[in-house]
């Protein structure tokens, strides 16, 4: 029985093989090509038969296949860039198949890498997978090659491809912030080469991920479980941007591409002639009272431009000296992008209507955004190897994102405006000009020294500064002819300047002791960091009011754009630096850890230890001395234990179990007791805000079947104590009633299941992941009933957490013809975008499904053509309030776009398709 089964199986295989084979009588030579040291497949390596001039390259599945028809001796030459070529002589007799494997050795000038998080540094998919497989904790990795083939050109857009990651989008529809495993952006941090960087955001710690051009990356990692050597304030995950390293040989990459955005191209793209870089308060004496003639009005002169997108990348690297001790790479990426957005927003009032807690609406805002983004990223990486034991590494990065945005709004007033159905409202036209320039600079000097066979030490000295400059935010408003109005006229308007920075000096030191005990290995490491951070934010605001003529009439404008000028305004002011948005703050973090890593019987890898982090913060705001909380300090210490266990079931199967404790620090703005007066609620800071403490558990099974195939299944659970959210609550500081601001709820929990799958069949591949997340948090809300407002508790998911996240990529990669195609699909389930102070009135984003496509074709050895197309379906971004909507389907309060009686649409945005196409040049000696 058994024998016959085996025979049958072999027969089948043989039949299959023969039918596929072109040469019925030939001998097939198959084999793998691996890196000698890392045992990873080298895709794209070539195997060439000298005698008959036949060759093949290694496919996605990591193998090559050659066929010969004559029995004789052949010489097979295997070669790959960066590796020493290898020849093997084989003699073909009558065998019908032959297995010949190559193990290539790297050119000897390749150096060992030093990355603080302690992972290898390579650029390919295989190494990405290798990193995942061999990593100490749960890491997802995407290699430069995968990124290059992605339809995405910013890091933020790539992040949405990761398992368990959903993204928050900016007004041009591009991803901006990552929600990892349902944990909002505040629970995640950003690393550059393992070094944490500050944020240019004026209020938050988290870094806008759309700052980074994707092409600079060597690799993008999302680290989902912490080890003691990592900073303890990531709960969802740490996003590690590993930048390109100096290559082993002289290498030049360059690319240029152009394209457009469908909305900007069809609708037209509007921009303005100029703006005022400095506020009068920044150039004049203190207490100078500005007048309307102190300002430019060029920011209100709009004109249309052609939305031609341009993307350029360049990098050059080599080992520079004869002895190959010095290596360096310089890379630059520049993107000049035009994006159009069409949006409708039905602006809810901050209060609801009794007796049924009915949401009320103030405005219908129909908006056209013209977003011009100029994104520049440059970096330099240099390393010098003194000898086998000592190495120095210098890294410098500069990224800048300049956003120039014109927003044109038609505002139909609903509340207190006299609207009784469609076409009857008081309408206003608003034009806003906004400029924002965000920058991050990072300079890191690292040293790595092996003191003996067992002892190693490495250190880093880091300077980072993130800054943000938003000059001349202005929006003017024209009342545009309600029937009650005498004539269209201007309204009061503001001009604002915001400038802020966040500056870090950090030192890291790590000590390693390594000992083999029989076949087991023990590594003990210890170290720490000290960081001192300074934050400074300055905000200036001027308010103008329309000028009456001598008869007490206001000037009238139908299309006031051309006419707007200083003569029509009075007011101004001194800019008032004394305001709740202006503050300075400092933070010192001292951290130390001890970590043990044991390799037992080649099966068990256990990393455990603890980290202590001490936080000291102070703030100062420019309020008068009578203000409670003009200055203050906070200090706390956390002990964060963690343990990561990996069990290698087989060399290709891992079972992992992790526990770690993490924290989430309030931002320095949140603890500063600012108080921004609002119409309904004041927004206040909370110096009594506690940092959140999170206990995390992970289980994961990974199977790496073939060279590139992978399946993994994981579950996670997080218990969050003192979770921080922007919430409606009773003010504890000024006892001024109810306010909105950062607030600790009692606790929250979050669990989920992650599934990832990658499978290749020759040139075809499929890569996908699915994450289910379920979080719960209970907070106090209001309900406006017949007898006034009552407080009720409501349980809901964390803001930004989607229950279902799925990604699917369909790949075609023909190595022989140098053609790659990818169709990428991303699905994000419904999630809360805003937590309402009222029961059941949270804003829910509709499930979002986005389809992108990319293509790359190599030609003439060094060149390739590529195409990236994003948002092919022009997916609308839609937000609903889940409240019965009959009040707004018809009658006096009728609202546009309403189709569903069970919910109220409050926002719908279209971003249009984006296309770029261009050429890439790659040369490597």
């Amino acid at each position, binding site marked *: 029985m058994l024998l016959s089964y085996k025979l049958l199986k072999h027969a089948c295989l043989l039949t299959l093989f023969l039918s596929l084979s072109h040469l019925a009588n030939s001998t097939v030579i198959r084999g793998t090509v691996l890196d000698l040291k890392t045992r990873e497949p080298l895709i794209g390596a070539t195997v060439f038969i000298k005698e008959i001039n036949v060759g093949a390259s290694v496919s996605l599945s990591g193998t090559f296949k050659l066929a010969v028809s004559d029995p004789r001796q052949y010489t097979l030459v295997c070669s790959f860039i960066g590796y020493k070529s290898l020849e093997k002589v084989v003699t073909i007799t009558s065998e019908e198949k032959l297995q010949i494997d190559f193990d290539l050795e790297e050119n000897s000038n390749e150096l060992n890498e030093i990355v603080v998080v302690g992972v290898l540094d390579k650029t390919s998919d295989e190494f990405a997978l290798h990193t995942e497989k061999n990593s100490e904790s749960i890491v997802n990795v995407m290699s430069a090659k995968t990124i290059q083939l992605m339809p995405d050109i910013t890091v933020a857009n790539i992040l949405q491809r990761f398992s368990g990651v959903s993204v928050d989008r900016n007004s041009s529809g591009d991803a901006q912030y990552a929600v990892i495993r349902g944990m909002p952006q505040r629970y995640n941090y950003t690393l550059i080469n393992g070094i944490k960087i500050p944020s240019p955001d004026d209020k938050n710690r988290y870094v806008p991920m759309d700052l980074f051009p994707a092409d600079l990356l060597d690799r993008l990692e999302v680290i989902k479980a912490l080890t003691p050597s990592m900073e303890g304030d990531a709960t969802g995950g740490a996003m590690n941007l590993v930048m390109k390293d100096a290559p082993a040989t002289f290498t030049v990459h360059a690319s240029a591409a152009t394209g457009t955005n469908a909305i900007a191209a069809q609708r037209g793209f509007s921009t303005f002639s100029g703006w005022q870089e400095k506020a009068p308060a920044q150039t004049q004496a203190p*207490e100078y*009272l500005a*007048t309307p003639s102190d300002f430019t009005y060029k920011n209100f002169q709009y004109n249309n431009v052609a939305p031609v997108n341009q993307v350029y990348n360049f990098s050059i690297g080599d080992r520079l000296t004869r002895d190959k001790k010095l290596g360096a790479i310089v890379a630059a990426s520049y993107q000049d992008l035009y994006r159009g957005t069409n949006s409708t927003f039905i602006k809810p*009032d901050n*209060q609801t*209507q*009794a007796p049924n807690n009915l949401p*009320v609406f*103030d405005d219908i805002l129909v908006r056209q955004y013209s977003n011009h983004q100029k994104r520049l990223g440059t970096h330099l990486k240099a390393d010098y190897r003194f000898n086998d034991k000592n190495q120095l590494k210098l890294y410098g990065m500069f990224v800048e994102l300049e956003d120039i945005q014109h927003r044109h709004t038609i505002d139909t007033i609903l*509340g*207190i405006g*006299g*609207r*009784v159905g469609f076409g*009857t409202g*008081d309408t206003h036209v608003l034009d806003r000009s906004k400029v924002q320039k965000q920058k991050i600079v990072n300079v890191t000097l690292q040293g790595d020294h092996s003191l003996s066979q067992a002892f190693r030490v490495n250190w880093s000295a880091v300077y980072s500064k993130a800054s943000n400059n938003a000059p001349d935010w202005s929006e003017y408003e024209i*009342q545009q002819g*309600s*029937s*009650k*109005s005498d004539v269209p*006229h201007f*309204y009061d308007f503001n001009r604002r300047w915001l400038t802020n920075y966040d500056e870090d000096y950090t030192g890291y030191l790590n000590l390693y002791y390594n000992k083999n005990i029989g076949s087991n290995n023990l590594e003990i490491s210890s170290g720490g960091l000290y960081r001192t951070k300074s934050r400074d934010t300055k*905000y200036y*605001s*001027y*308010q103008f*009011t329309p*000028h*009456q003529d*001598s*008869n*007490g009439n206001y000037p009238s404008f139908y299309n006031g754009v051309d006419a707007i000028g200083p003569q029509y305004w*009075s*007011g*101004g*002011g*001194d*800019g*008032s*630096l*004394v*305001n*709740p948005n202006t503050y300075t703050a400092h933070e010192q973090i001292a951290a130390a850890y001890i970590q043990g890593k044991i390799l037992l019987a080649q099966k068990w890898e256990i990393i455990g230890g603890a980290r202590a982090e001490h936080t000291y913060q102070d703030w100062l705001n420019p*309020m*008068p001395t*009578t*203000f409670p909380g003009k200055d203050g300090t906070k200090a706390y210490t956390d002990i964060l234990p963690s343990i990561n266990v990996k069990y290698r079931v087989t060399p290709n199967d891992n079972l992992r179990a992790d526990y770690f404790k993490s924290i989430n620090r309030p931002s320095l703005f949140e603890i500063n007791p*600012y*108080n921004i*007066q609002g119409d*309904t609620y*004041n927004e206040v800071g909370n110096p009594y805000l506690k940092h959140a403490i999170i206990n995390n558990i992970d289980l994961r099974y990974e199977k790496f079947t073939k060279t590139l195939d992978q399946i993994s299944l994981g579950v996670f659970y997080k218990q969050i104590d003192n979770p921080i959210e922007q919430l409606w609550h009773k003010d504890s500081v*000024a006892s*001024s*009633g*109810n306010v909105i601001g950062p607030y600790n709820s009692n606790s929250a929990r979050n669990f989920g299941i992650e599934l990832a799958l990658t499978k290749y069949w020759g040139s075809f591949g499929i890569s996908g992941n699915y994450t289910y997340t379920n979080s719960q948090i209970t907070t106090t809300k209001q309900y406006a009933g017949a007898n*006034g407002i009552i407080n009720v508790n409501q349980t809901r998911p964390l803001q930004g957490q989607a229950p279902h996240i799925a990604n699917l990529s369909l790949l075609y990669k023909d190595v022989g013809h140098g053609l790659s195609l990818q169709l990428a699909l991303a699905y994000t389930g419904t999630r809360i975008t805003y937590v309402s102070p009222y029961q059941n009135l949270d804003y829910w984003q509709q499930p979002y499904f986005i389809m992108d496509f990319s293509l790359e074709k190599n030609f003439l050895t060094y060149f390739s053509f590529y195409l990236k197309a994003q948002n092919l379906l022009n997916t609308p971004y839609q937000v609903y309030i889940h409240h019965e909507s009959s009040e707004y389907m018809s009658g*006096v*309060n009728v609202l546009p776009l309403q189709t569903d009686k069970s919910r109220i649409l409050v926002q719908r945005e279209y971003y249009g398709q984006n296309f770029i196409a261009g050429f890439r040049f790659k040369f490597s000696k």
Partner: protein
Amino acid sequence: MKTQKMLAVTTVVVAIIMLASCSKESTTVSKPQFKAGAAISGDSLTSGASNPVKGTMLSGKTFYFSGPVYVNKGDTLVMQSGVKLLAKSPRAMLIINGVFISLGTKQNPNWITGVDAYNNPSQYKLTSYTDPNSDPGLTSGGNAGTYPRQWGGIQCGTTATMFNVKWTHLDFAGGLVTNTSPVVTGFVYSAGNTLFATCFQNPAGVYILEDSWIYGTTSDVARITHGSVHFMRNTVEKVGYNDGDAFNTKGEASGNMAYNLFIGTSKGGTKASAKGPSSGGPFPYGKVNMYNNTYVNCGYRSLDPDRGANVDIEQGASGYVYNNIIVNCRTGIRFVESPVADTVNSAYGNNLYYADSLNIAGQFMPSSHLGKYNTTDIPLPSSYYTFPNQKYWFVVKGTPQAVAGGTWTNGYDATSLVRKNSPVFVNYPLPAPVGTATYGPHLGSMTWQGNSDFHLQSSSPAIGKGYTSFSAVVTPISSITNPDLAATFTSPNIDLGAFPTDGTGNQHN
């Protein structure tokens, strides 16, 4: 009725004669004026948070201030009668975190104003039309700090428990919130805003403004975000350059606005809205009764065409609105439909409207806002408007529009209402003399009281038309029993307006 009155008068006359003729001894013992803490020495109040002020400004004295004057939590600052507090700088203001009391009397009123304005009233309080950009009574904020008249108002912090101002002139209060303003935080202001003449924000606090005169503010006379309020028998002139309601309550503030005279306000006269944070106050929130007020030439300088309402009940607020006289104001009584006012706890009627133009008459019932059938308003609503029903509140349909040829479309026909039902004031010309050099170009140009007298002549149709079967909101202010501090409640009158013929109303002129 008449015989009773005559009998009473006769009795009094006889009694006086008897008293005068008898040789009985009569004694009057003067009552000491209200005093808290020590008398304030010198003639100036110290500025700055580090030099807080408390105690009493003794009767008849003049004091100066030139910066922010602080009254700390738990402390009290008192002005006895006849005290003048004069600002030497636009930076002068009162920051009240405790209690502020100004007890002027009819004979000896108090003053808080700029020193130049006090000394040269004719230069500052104009009584003929002038360019609004150079009228000292109207300022858009901005660089008004260069004028020597202005001061920064009375700004009450969250811990202020009482604001109690009687028989006091508050002139030229306002200005701009700047870097050096002490109200940039903890108050209802943000950078670049204009200052309200007074603000109050303690839910447990009491705000009393009685028998006082307010002239030439930059913005609102009173911005109340919380607290119990009592606005009675005041005179309000020239409020706001292009923004500012006279009495503006938000949140859960509740109380009365009665027997006030408003002339030439920028936006509304009396306004209540429950917009704002709830602090768990009594329900219904924002219940403000507005009755027996007289509104003249109000609501024209507002940039928002819909904001000229002189009686304005907004989002979630409620009130009884009766016995008011509204003359040549931009719109009539407005109950807002969205976000909707608390109509369940609101009612109105017995109000008299007068218009010199069709535009204004077309807004006696402001279109698109809420109305309710009644048979007591003058003119009688059913005489010019077809009500959809007589039971429920409804949205006033249609938008009256003057079109070519002078006919009307879409709205009710107000042609017959123009220049009808003049309240026949003692001294105020109706129809208004629009277009004269003194009066100014518009109905809204005349913003000052001058020699006008808004008492009613005996021929007035406003006499005897009032509704008196409701009462003022008296709790919790009525619990103040100290006779110096207690509020004097005047009940709804049988006559309309702030100056009923029985003399119980507004006591000015």
